[in-house]
């Protein structure tokens, strides 16, 4: 792996860890790396968020329904005594990805530069992007559940840390 990819991976891992620890109170551990090109849909949930400026690309999360439910119960459980509305886990997943993407891009660009993100989309099954275009990914483990975070976009491939 080259140095640029190391920096990207570190930034992505830092963003994922910080957000999951702060929002969902989950301790994050690195999992055995999973090749994203061989990622199986098998009923997993996904969330995709476009990065618009100054770098163009997408950040993606893939995880099981059980994992999404666990994270959502952690977030909502401390707030509403565990009462979850229908679709709450997808809303929570989108919000987690939104926070991860913000932290990730913030780490990559100079502090005096702004950035822009799109609105998140969520779904179940095959991820509707070409995963062979992934420039980096991290696989993490929270309480036995694996979450994969993926970054797509040629801008990130040529990225050099400021």
């Amino acid at each position, binding site marked *: 792996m080259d140095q640029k990819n190391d920096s990207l991976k570190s930034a992505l891992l830092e963003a994922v860890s*910080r*957000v999951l620890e*702060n*929002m969902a109170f989950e301790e994050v551990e690195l999992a055995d790396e999973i090749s994203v090109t061989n990622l199986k849909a098998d009923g997993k949930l996904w969330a995709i968020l476009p990065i618009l400026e100054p770098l163009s690309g997408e950040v993606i999360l893939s995880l099981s329904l059980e994992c999404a439910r666990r994270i*959502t119960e952690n*977030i*909502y459980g*401390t*707030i*509403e005594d565990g009462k979850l*509305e229908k679709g*709450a886990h997808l*809303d*929570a997943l*989108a*919000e987690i990805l*939104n*926070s991860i*993407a*913000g*932290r990730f891009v*913030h780490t990559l*660009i100079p*502090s*005096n*530069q*702004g*950035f*822009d*993100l*799109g*609105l998140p989309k969520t779904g179940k099954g095959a991820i509707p992007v070409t995963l062979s275009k992934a420039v980096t990914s991290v696989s993490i483990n929270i309480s036995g559940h694996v979450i994969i975070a993926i970054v797509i976009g040629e801008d990130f491939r040529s990225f050099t840390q400021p």
Partner: protein
Amino acid sequence: MFQTIIITDDSTTARMITKRCLEIAGFQNSSFLEAKNGEEALQMAKDNQVDLMVIDLNMPKMDGSSLLKRLKSSPRLNHIPVLVISSLVSEAKETELKEQGAFAALSKPITPAGLSKVLKSLSEQSTWG
């Protein structure tokens, strides 16, 4: 202080987290109104006596920047302090938002301590405290 607070975010999860953080930060006796976008928040601000508005930036319909501009250009509403909580907050964005009239901007994910700090600072420097 801050008897009525409008929380504006298109995510139910984000609104709940913000509300909970505000409660932990000492505003458990405040009344909270929730809006899913800038249009709803603007209408709520017109219809209620509001002491604080917490707004996200990236929302459908009317986004947070447009809402901030509408609030600050309204003689009836421009006294309401606005706190921005968004994943889009950078130093550059915070400066821009303050120039547009927000009193502070926090990056997601927020913490009760971070929220408490900026609200304490606001109450010390204003007549809202």
